[in-house]
Structures are given as C-alpha cells and as structure tokens.
C-alpha cells in the first residue's frame, strides 16, 4: 500500500515508457514538428540574413552569429538531454531513456562541430586567425571530444543493454566534470568576448539583432527535437530488426 496516487503516477510514467506508445505518439507529433521547424528556420534565416542590420564594427560577418550562437546553445542543450536521459536510464531502467541518450549524442556532436566551424570562420576576419586557444573555444572542443568518446563507447560494446549502462555512467561522470573542465579552462585563459545575451542587467545586444537570434534559437531547438524523435524511431526499429534477426537465426 504505497499510496494510490504514486501508483497511478508511475503507471502514467510507464505508459510513456512503452515503445509502441512512443511510436504512435511520435508518428503524430513528427509532421507537426517538421512544419514548425521549417517555418521558424525560414523566418529566422530571412530575418537574420536580409532583414537585420549589419554591425557597425563587424560589418556583414556578424550574420555568422545567427548560426553560431544557436549551435553553441544546442551543443550544450544536447549534452544536458544526454546526461538527463542517462540518469533516468540508470535510475529507473527506462528503456526509452537509453534510446534518447544514444540518439541525442550525434545530434549534439554535430551542433558542437557546427559551432566550432562557424566560430573558426568568424574568427578569421575578426581575430585574424582561424583558431585561438581561448577559453570558450577550448571548452567547446573538449565538449566535442566528450561527445566522440560517448559515441565511441556505444560503438565498441556490442550488446545494447550493456553498452547503454556503460555509456550512461560515462555521460553522468562527464556532466559532473563539464563545469570543472570549463572553469579550469576559463581560469587558464580568456580572450573571447564575454556572454552578451544571458547576463545580469538584460541583454547587451540590440533588439533588431536579438529577435532574429531568438527565432533562430527556437528553430534550432525544434530542429533538434525533430531529429531526436526521428533518430529515436530509427533506433527502436533497428532494435526490433535485431531481435527478429536473432530469433530467425535461433530457429
């Protein structure tokens, strides 16, 4: 008698844990996600590339920001999704959490890569060099390594359940270490401009640039969600195929 409300809550939780239920739900959700993502990205790209002012110092190169900054946000958001799902996977043995963490990793890694590449392209006219060893670039690069390590661990352990557990442990250790690494690197050196959107005293960026940036960020986030749902569906189907194959060879 652990209390009826807890029981129903966990039952409700269980309902989402059911992969078949997830497949049905995501099937209905996906077209909606795709359409909204496309609209937001189209609007965001128009606003940021044509309908926003050039910077008085940086000129037209400032438009790289509309890709660079959302990518960097999504790179960190992706790791948070991965670590959060890993925690759920380890504690509640939730089968979908496992799949969510695995599916989030390559998307997060891709955004990290995009942030690094656009940052490098932006740094060339601004700083006169493709790469500087400043704190933010360095910790982004390290975040990229963490993603790669996580994916490599999934790729080397054959059995999915075992690989999932090990990878979840790695993601959680990483989530504890990411702030430590970040602050050690900040302490080490900094040359990059300080954060200018989320800071005490409100954004230090003109509204004409902030609007397109926020729309792009929202569009990127929905793009992330769409890709995550797609990849999770693919992973579930892949596991079904694997089980069917094993069953057939077993016969």
């Amino acid at each position: 008698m652990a209390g009826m409300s807890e029981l129903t809550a966990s039952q409700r939780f269980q309902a989402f844990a059911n992969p078949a239920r997830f497949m049905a739900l995501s099937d209905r959700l996906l077209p909606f996600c795709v359409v909204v993502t496309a609209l937001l990205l189209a609007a965001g790209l128009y606003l940021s590339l044509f309908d926003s002012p050039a910077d008085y110092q940086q000129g037209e190169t400032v438009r790289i920001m509309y890709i660079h900054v959302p990518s960097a946000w999504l790179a960190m958001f992706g790791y948070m999704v991965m670590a959060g799902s890993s925690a759920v996977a380890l504690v509640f043995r939730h089968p979908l959490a496992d799949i969510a963490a695995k599916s989030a990793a390559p998307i997060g890694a891709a955004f990290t890569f995009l942030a690094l590449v656009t940052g490098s392209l932006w740094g060339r006219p601004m700083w006169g060099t493709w790469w500087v060893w400043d704190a933010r670039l360095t910790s982004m690069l390290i975040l990229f390594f963490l993603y790669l390590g996580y994916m490599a661990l999934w790729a080397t352990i054959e059995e999915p359940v075992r690989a999932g557990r090990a990878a979840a442990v790695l993601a959680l250790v990483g989530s504890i270490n990411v702030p430590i690494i970040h602050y050690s690197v900040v302490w080490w050196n900094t040359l990059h401009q300080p954060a200018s959107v989320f800071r005490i005293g409100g954004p230090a960026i003109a509204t004409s640039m902030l609007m397109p940036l926020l729309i792009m960020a929202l569009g990127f986030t929905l793009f992330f969600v769409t890709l995550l749902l797609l990849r999770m569906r693919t992973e579930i189907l892949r596991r079904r195929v694997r089980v069917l194959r094993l069953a057939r060879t077993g016969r």
Partner: protein
Amino acid sequence: MIRAFKTLVFRDTKLAIRVGGGAGMAVFFFLTVTAIVPLGIGPNLKLLGNIAPGMLWVALLLSALLTLDRLFQADFEDGSLDLLMTGAMPLELVAAAKALSHWLTTGLPLVVAAPLLGLLLNLDTAAFGPLVLAMLIGTPALSFLGAIGAALTVSVRRGGLLASLLVIPFYIPVLIFGVGAAGGGGVSAVPGAGGQSLLLLGAVALVSLVLGPVAAAAALRANLR
C-alpha cells in the same frame, strides 16, 4: 573491511611489481617521451627550460594513460573480478583499492622520476619543489579518474586506447592546475597564482577520490551483469 582493503592493495601492488606486471614500463615511457622532446624542438636550453613544466606534465599524463588497462583487465580475464564482485567488500572499495595500488606502482614512481627528467629539460632549480609537490597532489587524481575509463572499457578487447580517449578530457583540469602550480604556462606572471592553482589542484584531486571509485564501480556493474 579495512583488512580486506589492505590485502587487495598489497596483492595488486605485488602483482604489478613482479615479473609480467609492467610497473616499471610507465617510468621508462616517461623517460623516452621526455627524451624525444629536445630531439623534436631543438637543443635550445632556454626554450626547453620554459616549456619544461608543461612538457613533464604532458609526458606524465601519457605515461599514466598507458598503464590504465592493467587496472581491471587482468582480473576480468582470469575471473578474479567476478569473485571480488560477489565478495563482502563493496565494489566501490574494490575500485578504490585498485586505483590506490595503481597510484603506488605508477603515479609515485613517475613523481620520483620527474626531477631527474627536469634536469634533462633544463628546468629552473626553483621550480623543482613546486613541480614535485604539484605532481604528488595531482597523480592520485590521474589514477582515480583513470579507473573510470578502465572500468568502462573492461569488457572491450584492446580497450586501452578507448580508455585513454575517454579519460583525457577528464585529465584536463589536473593538467591545467598542475602546470599552473609548477609555475609554467601563461599563469606564472600573476603573483600568487601558483599557490591558488595548487589549492584548486587539491580540490580536483579530492573530487576525483570520491567520484572515481563510485563511477568505476557503477561502470563495472554495467559491464559484468
């Protein structure tokens, strides 16, 4: 419990020191890596002296990585890890004992060898003390964080390389604060930065003493269900 812990530390240390254990390899590797640095960048003593603390730390890191697969691999292969898991001692304590013996047989000899290699790289005499102190504080962190990587890859054949790739990002704070405390890198110009980074290095080491065994035990459980 403490007796079991001690016994395990002794056993692992003995196994590492005796023939086939490969405890001396890390020191030898440390020596060779340090020796090829001047060959690569030229025999300019002034330049060598400037980069000596950083180079010694990087070489130390690589040497510590090289021996990680020894932590759990052999015990996994001959089945003694299964026995340890079913035994009365908590798996976290087992991991801690193994990491401690890894430090005794790799970290400590590397620290002892470091001043000698400092001579080869024309390290400033005033920097010897801080360097050895920083390494004494920092090397346990390398063993305890390394245990996580070793435990994650224990069931992977030839997992040593993968373990290194997983662990290197976690070693970065140790490297940064270690070099800072030893008076190298870009931070030595700030007065008092050496002492500050020594404290931060100590903090990182203490965190890894807690995090390492817990995470390594969780990873072992995941791998050996």
